[in-house]
């Protein structure tokens, strides 16, 4: 029985003895109390229980993030943000959620009803499925595939399908425009995103998330962002592309409220709208967490052997840091136009990404192993590059528009 269960339900790769935390847990904790507990099926139960906890806990994240976004926005804009519900408005999102649950669930009569109902669930499910492969700490990872990052890329690509479904089935022209923009945007930005992930994979030579993190355990300078100048560039391409993936300013064209009202979710109301909303924030955290895992050391700390900025708290802090940067950009920058968005992707990011891959290959050939030398040279190049970029940017900033001299 347990054999069949393990074969049909569990990814084989995870059931190797000693590496599966669920089996460990069953062996160490449960077997001493209930000696007859079947190890294999027990591990399935334990995993399901953990998944249950996970699915229950992760949706709380958007609740916190929405509040954080509003508070951050308020700080940027000289306001206080929500202050009435709960102390300092901390229960505002909860109140909003309750309000949304009780709102009328309107379905456009001329729309495609099935797709309309299905779309939010597709998006919601996909954005949460991504969390399955993210290693929150050494112990907390739902499923440690050996193709983890590949799985994440695959799952997150399905989101665009949900967006198109939502836009099409709403039978609204604004929704359609929004979903088409979204399709073009997400499909385009998936390329530089994938290519920049590939640089990391080339250096680590593994697709497994925990192995990628494991290779960054030597303190801040072994984090993949500093391991070669190419990963340094790749990180920024990854981050900007992921902002585009999750449709946030300056790439929020699919839901640009000043142009196409609300884009693909114009016609949604009530809880279905809330699902889109939650999915957006879950996505934001997910891409930040992926970025942290791939480039910023994941759950590994700044110093080798110490837990500073390491472990689960460190991981969450680093991810939230990236989320904050996203919010910062959102409340500072205007929005790009469609052609500019595509230009940025196809004319800049994709060529640079290809160059990155080439460079990473060469780098890997020169420095077979990561040692002090390779990291030292890498950091030196990054340092020089940053100073150069600063000089160029400074020259550009000096050209900013002066008050025009009057003709009188």
């Amino acid at each position, binding site marked *: 029985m347990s054999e069949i269960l393990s074969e049909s339900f569990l990814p084989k790769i995870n059931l190797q003895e000693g590496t599966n935390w669920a089996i460990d847990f069953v062996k160490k904790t449960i077997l001493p109390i209930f000696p007859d507990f079947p190890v294999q099926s027990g591990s399935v139960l334990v995993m399901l229980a953990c998944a249950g906890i996970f699915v229950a806990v992760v949706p709380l994240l958007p609740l916190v993030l929405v509040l954080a976004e509003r508070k951050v926005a308020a700080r940027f*804009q000289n306001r206080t943000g929500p202050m009435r519900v709960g102390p300092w408005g901390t229960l505002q999102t909860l109140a909003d959620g309750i309000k949304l649950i009780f709102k009328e669930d309107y379905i456009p009569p001329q729309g495609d009803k099935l797709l309309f109902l299905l779309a939010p669930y597709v998006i919601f499910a996909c954005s949460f499925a991504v969390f399955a492969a993210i290693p929150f700490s050494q112990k907390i990872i739902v499923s440690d595939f050996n193709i983890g990052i590949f799985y994440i890329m695959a799952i997150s690509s399905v989101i665009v399908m949900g967006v198109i479904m939502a836009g099409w089935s709403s039978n609204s022209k604004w929704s359609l425009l929004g979903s088409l923009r979204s399709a073009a945007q997400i499909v385009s930005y998936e390329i530089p995103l994938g290519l920049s992930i590939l640089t990391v994979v080339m250096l680590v030579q593994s697709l497994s998330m925990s192995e990628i993190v494991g290779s960054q355990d030597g303190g801040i300078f072994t984090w993949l962002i500093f391991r070669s100048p190419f990963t340094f560039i790749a990180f920024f391409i990854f981050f900007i592309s992921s902002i585009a993936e999750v449709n946030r300013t300056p790439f929020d064209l699919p839901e640009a409220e000043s142009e196409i009202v609300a884009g693909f979710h114009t016609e949604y109301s009530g809880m279905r709208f809330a699902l889109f909303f939650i999915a957006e924030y879950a996505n934001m955290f997910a891409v930040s967490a992926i970025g942290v895992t791939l480039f910023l050391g994941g759950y590994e700390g700044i110093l080798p052997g110490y837990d500073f900025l390491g472990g689960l708290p460190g991981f969450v802090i680093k991810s939230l840091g990236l989320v904050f940067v996203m919010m910062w950009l959102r*409340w500072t*920058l205007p929005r790009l136009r469609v052609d500019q968005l595509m230009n940025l992707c196809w004319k800049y990011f994709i060529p640079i990404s290809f160059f990155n891959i080439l460079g990473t290959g060469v780098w890997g050939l020169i420095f077979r192993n990561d040692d002090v030398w390779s990291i030292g040279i890498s950091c030196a190049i990054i340092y020089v590059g940053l100073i150069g970029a600063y000089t160029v940017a400074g020259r550009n900033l000096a050209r*900013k528009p002066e008050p*025009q001299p009057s003709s009188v």
Partner: protein
Amino acid sequence: MESTQQTESKIIELKPFTDEMIVNMGPQHPSTHGVLRLELRLDGEVVREAIPHIGYLHRCFEKHSENLSYPQIIPFTDRMDYVAAMNQNWGFCLAVEKLLEADEKKDFEVPERAEYLRILICELNRIASHLLSFGTYGMDIGAFTPFLYAFRDRERLLLLFEKICGARLTYNYIRIGGVSEIIPMEPGSVDEQNYLDEVKEFLDYFEPKIDEYNDLLTANSIFSERTMGVAVMSEEMAISYGATGPNLRGSGVDWDLRRDEPYSIYDRFDFDVPVAKNIPELGAVVGDCWSRYKIRMDEMKESVKIVRQILAEGLPDGPVMAEMKAVRPPKGEIYFRSEAPRGELGFYIVSDGTPKPVRVKGRSPCFSALSALQELSRGLMVADIIAIIGSIDIVMGEVDR
């Protein structure tokens, strides 16, 4: 029949376009600045034609005016351009005063103190109006934060207006022959000094803010990408379409009524008229959205300059209202235009010697500027339409009247 079908199918094969989609933008849309409806004929994201439909805010200003006495019309002008209502009041009063002055039998003159108060308050109102334009333009382009910064400063201005006339938006402050004295402010009194101090405090606070906003939005590269070189309105086109004010100066025409046909006492003040110039190293072209926007940013500084000169001189003594029994202009007609924040606001008044006008026409600057939208927007993208509407800075209350 067959032949036509064949040709049609041939055309479809050769046509590089996709199907046309007709979308109604507005009247309820976040960035049409009110209730403008645009009928967009889209080819994907590209706009083949944007046809404006107006009239959703038509409140029959002209018909109402024919049945009201002159002072009663002033509150209606408030509701035309409700974000720069002081200037609308003034525009109407100036026209009526001009007609009253033409009457040889009466000696009519607006007192000096009233003139100073009018310029003080109207230039502050111009700042408020341009601030709103700046904020909403940022929001149209996608930056939300400038909007709230602009409203924060505008709020202080509205408080200043409230202190002098008791209203925040529709003032009815400038009256025919002077200004209203609902909240008394004796010449040389503590009240007056306090008020002028508050104005000065605001100016000291606000002047550095303009540079801050320029750093925040004007110099932002995404913003300039979106607006520079977009929807270029040439000089001829601007004049032909009757674009006035910042839109005209944004097209490179050096024309400002305050300087070139000075009314009231504008000739006593020293200020510059910002005119758009090509800035090749940035990519700004005369007549594009960015130029129009930038003129407004620069005009705020000029307004600050004028108000500072008034504060330095101090308000003169004397009454704030000309002495007259009733407003009864002589038989005749007048067209008078003044420089409102959105351009030249003209009032055409026909009087038959009775206390009620026969005809009042408000020539609104937005109405003329908006008519250029159809030609400007051809071949641009949906996002550019928003950029154009924001840059010509329309207020639908004034377009529809």
